[in-house]
């Protein structure tokens, strides 16, 4: 495994960070290392390619909504929503008022649990076991909610589907959601103290992505916001009921791993606010379960829909030629740009010890990159 890069310089060798590595996901980075210093990094994606774009061309819209769960394991409901919106825009179907509220509710809950994973994974990357265990532990409360509402803990089986949502919220859901939000708030208070005591000395000044580089390399979502770019699709190009809601976009100017951690935590707080508003304003009327219209054709046309998911900007380009199945469905995941250009840029010149901190603070998901 040791490759001498240069006969004169025998201390330089290649270190693989992934795919079989406890600190990486289904993804590999080839690091050229000189002692403890990383001289260059090359991202090596493609270990998780499952061919969703092609698979979707052979399935109708309801089947595709189930397929869209799998685009990213940790954000199944958000991807459900992007896909459903693309189809809705093509068909021009009227979405029931309550379904729009439930869509936002579930998407925001999904954002909270995704950010918890982010927080936990960053803690794990810097060897802070407690943060990792606590974040993943509290995430389970939200998974319990998903099980109650959708029937699946991780994969909701296309709960948010074209035409609304599959079925109404159960009666007990509202109380349980409020209970879980209380638990999450409790956890965030712990996270705040972790940041002050231990996260700070490992993430402050690590992996600094300045504003210019963030724009040039195509960073979106929380990564861009931690670098001082105030951009959020929920605000810039609102969808569903977001224009009616009152929330803020946390931004920071430092652009380092610590700033990204804090942006993640503050976004959880904003999401909690959104969920509370949605619960308050949600219509009382019972929602009819959706009937899958299998034989319906998608009208001809093409559309590009973008959403703000936890990791950044997610988009679906869909073209239909008037058949049941889409002619082409292109998925734009936020992780590809964070994972290849941004990661390579940040890793160059860093220490080996900072590689996992940088890698996980970018909140990347190999699944939505390889699709």
């Amino acid at each position, binding site marked *: 495994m*040791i490759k001498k890069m240069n006969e004169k310089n025998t201390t330089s060798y290649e270190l693989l960070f992934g795919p079989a590595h*406890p600190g990486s996901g289904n993804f590999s980075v080839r690091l050229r290392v000189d002692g403890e210093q990383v001289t260059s990094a090359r991202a090596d994606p493609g270990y998780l390619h499952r061919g969703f774009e092609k698979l979707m061309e052979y399935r109708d819209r309801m089947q595709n909504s189930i397929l869209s769960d799998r685009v990213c394991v940790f954000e199944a409901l958000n991807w459900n929503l992007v896909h459903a919106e693309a189809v809705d825009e093509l068909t021009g179907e009227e979405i029931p008022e309550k379904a729009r509220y439930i869509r936002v509710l579930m998407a925001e809950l999904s954002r909270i649990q995704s950010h918890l994973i982010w927080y936990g994974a960053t803690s794990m990357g810097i060897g802070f*076991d407690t943060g990792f*265990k606590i974040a993943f532990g509290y995430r389970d409360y939200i998974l319990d909610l998903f099980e109650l509402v959708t029937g699946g803990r991780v994969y909701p089986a296309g709960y948010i589907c074209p035409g609304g949502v599959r079925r109404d919220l159960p009666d007990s859901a509202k109380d349980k959601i409020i209970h879980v939000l209380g638990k999450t708030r409790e956890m965030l208070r712990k996270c705040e103290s972790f940041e002050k005591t231990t996260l700070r000395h*490992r993430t402050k000044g690590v992996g600094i992505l300045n504003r210019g580089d963030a724009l040039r390399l195509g960073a979106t979502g929380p990564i861009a916001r931690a670098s001082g770019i105030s951009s959020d699709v929920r605000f810039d190009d609102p969808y569903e009921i977001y224009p009616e809601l009152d929330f803020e976009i946390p931004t920071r100017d430092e652009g380092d791993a610590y700033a990204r951690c804090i942006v993640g935590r503050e976004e959880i707080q904003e999401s909690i606010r959104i969920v509370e508003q949605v619960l308050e304003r949600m219509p009382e009327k019972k929602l009819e379960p959706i009937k899958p219209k299998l034989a319906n054709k998608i009208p001809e046309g093409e559309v590009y829909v973008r959403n703000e998911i936890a990791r950044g900007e997610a988009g679906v380009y869909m073209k239909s030629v008037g058949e049941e199945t889409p002619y082409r469905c292109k998925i734009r995941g936020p992780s590809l740009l964070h994972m290849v250009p941004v990661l390579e840029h940040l890793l160059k010149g860093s220490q080996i010890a900072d590689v996992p901190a940088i890698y996980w603070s970018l909140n990347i998901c190999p699944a939505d990159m390889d699709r």
Partner: protein
Amino acid sequence: MMWINIMLIPVVGFIAIVIGLLYAGIDRVLAARMQERVGPPLTQPFLDVFKLMIKENIIPEKSVKWLFNSMPIVCLASTIIILFYLPFGGFSPILGDHGDLILVLYLLIVPALTLVIAGFSSGSPYAVVGAQRKMIMMMSYEFPLAITVVSIAWLLTVSNVPDPFSLQAVTGNPVWGLVGPLGFLGLILQLLVLLFVMPGELGRIPFDVPEASQEIAGGILAEYSGRNLALFYLADAVKVVVFASVIIALFFPHGLGVSGWVGVLADSILFFIKLFLLMFLCSTFIRVAMSRFRITQVVYVYWIPSVLVSLTGLLLMLVDALL
């Protein structure tokens, strides 16, 4: 008497392993409770070791095989050997007549050194990075450790205790009684430094940089499996007992002062309680509360703050002795 001592050697080794593993189990349960988890059963480290013992022992092709295979044994053996020179429970050291504090200091380096050699001999870049880090760490924590030990020996010398480096002298004359208020403060600083060196010596978070699994995939132990890995686990468990015993011998050698068999038993129980408290403070608590240091930070905290604190402690003791 010599024969009885030699007979006792395997017994002490066995007891040390059992206690080490038991403490590893308690450590895991306590850490889990602090992280709002249930945690594994107390017997989990025993089960882990049994499982590893029956697993296949894979030796990498590019390794230096004899070094790769012998280092785990040397590591465990050298760790257990230290125990023979330390008072263990209510018993005086088995080989106490044949070695002193300086020998113990040297022996403490051996397990770390075997880990370094193990890393270099396994022929994996992860292990090489880990071994380099371990070497740098050893160079960092040895100096404050040496200052502390030497200052205690010096304190015994000025207090006219004969043979100040022998462990009988150290344990026979608890250091707290030999100093005035300033020296007492100095001793507390020395104790703090020693408590801070302990997780580094044991390679626990925040000082587990040589093994950092998220960074270098297990580092030194990346290529180890099966029986060899089990031996390293055992050595790690015994190391906790050994290093805690060193701190107890230096700073808390107090017994209950009851004579006869009851006294030995009571002193043993007291010893295990002290051992448990030290382990909780230096291993469990610090591990749960902190994230891993960068190697540069490790070198910094040992060379600058720790050395300064221990030198201040030495200075205070010096002033106290002169007054």
